[in-house]
């Protein structure tokens, strides 16, 4: 199993029956494939639909796309709406969980994921609204990039929100930001605690319930 699949599978276990869930572009999109059997999860695309599903070959519709403009499909019971209602769901506390990629997460659980000054300024899109408004924010990302840990003492990149994220799932570990700091809760298959610590740019508190990362619900 590659690292992205591992992360997506682990994140999918966090989705509960009946949840309204928004997946960011890139890695988080994979999560939809691994929802545990028996859980009916409603996926929102912030451009204006609840009940989205993967594209159906030969049935692309130019009026039915995801937030990146790529074709999607919709399940029975889907509902479409405009951008203010879409973000009303996100900002009004109606979104149970959002899964987003990250550039950095720091010791306080702050996420930076929308720009690298001087290099890449895509814009925040809906990320600031999602992190500020969702009931639960899960960051799904590689633990390190180009040899540097993405989990740091203090974000050097511009923050997406000052709201503390709820869970960080990486290819090495599951980490929960708390009042006391970042708590290491799970290690990925074949990964030791020492490896996680060595690849993390700030202190981690070891959970008394530290366990191997489960990948099936």
């Amino acid at each position: 199993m590659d690292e992205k699949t591992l992360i997506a599978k682990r994140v999918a276990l966090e989705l509960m029956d009946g949840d309204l869930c928004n997946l960011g572009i890139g890695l988080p999109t994979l999560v939809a494939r691994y929802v545990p059997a028996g859980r009916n999860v409603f996926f929102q695309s912030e451009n204006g639909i609840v009940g989205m599903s993967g594209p159906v070959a030969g049935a692309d519709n130019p009026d039915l796309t995801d937030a990146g403009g790529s074709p999607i499909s919709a399940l029975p019971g889907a509902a479409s709406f405009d951008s203010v209602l879409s973000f009303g769901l996100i900002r009004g506390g109606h979104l149970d969980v959002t899964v987003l990629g990250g550039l950095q997460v720091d010791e306080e659980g702050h996420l930076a994921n929308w720009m690298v000054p001087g290099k890449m300024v895509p814009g925040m899109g809906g990320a600031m609204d999602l992190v500020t408004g969702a009931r639960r924010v899960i960051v799904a990302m590689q633990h390190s990039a180009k040899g540097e840990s993405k989990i740091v003492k203090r974000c050097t990149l511009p923050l997406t929100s000052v709201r503390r994220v709820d869970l960080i799932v990486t290819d090495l570990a599951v980490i929960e930001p708390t009042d006391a700091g970042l708590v290491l809760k799970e290690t990925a298959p074949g990964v030791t605690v020492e490896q996680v610590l060595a690849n993390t740019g700030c202190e981690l508190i070891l959970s008394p319930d530290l366990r191997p990362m489960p990948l099936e619900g």
Partner: protein
Amino acid sequence: MSKLISLEDAVARIPDGASLLIGGFMAVGGPNRLVDELIRQRKSNLTIIANDTARPNFGLGKLVVEKLVAKVVTSHIGLNPETQKQMIAGDIQVELVPQGTLAERIRSGGVGLGGVLTPTGVGTSVEEGKRTVEIDGKTYLLELPIKADFALIAAKQADLYGNLTYALTARNFNPIMALAGATVIAEAEDIVPVGCIPPDAVMTPSVLVDHIVANTKR
């Protein structure tokens, strides 16, 4: 009392330097005929307010490539490298706004509110230069309303009064932009006689729409 107007006449009303709300999300649900006609008529120095700048060769992304845009207020430019390039070169001014805030700012302009009080952006670079208001111990940014000289929108169906419907994710910013443009110009996939859209199916009531672009070429 038909609001039909030719594509050419519709765009001829827009002066250089105008501010334009443009519907669509990655150009899905965008007024792509109007955009192409803006280019043909070389309308320039435009201020564009839109969710994103699409892709270089798709929808309003083309306006950027054609260098007709002086300023853009948007939430995302990541899929149009031309916008980023012109921004870095100082040829285009870009105001980045969180998507939900952008939607609420346009709506607040359209419905006569003084602004939007939102927690989105508090403590981030979005807060810079803005007033904050404390309410019940929580901090909110005061984000100002957005209006524009024109709203250019795209509908699935329009009747001759200007009642509009949209399809699926092509609805997005179009309904709120219809509230916030001083002049609202709509293009539609289908134009139908008055009475063909049931009252409950109307998503933008006719009274908000000034012109419907005729389905004849140009």
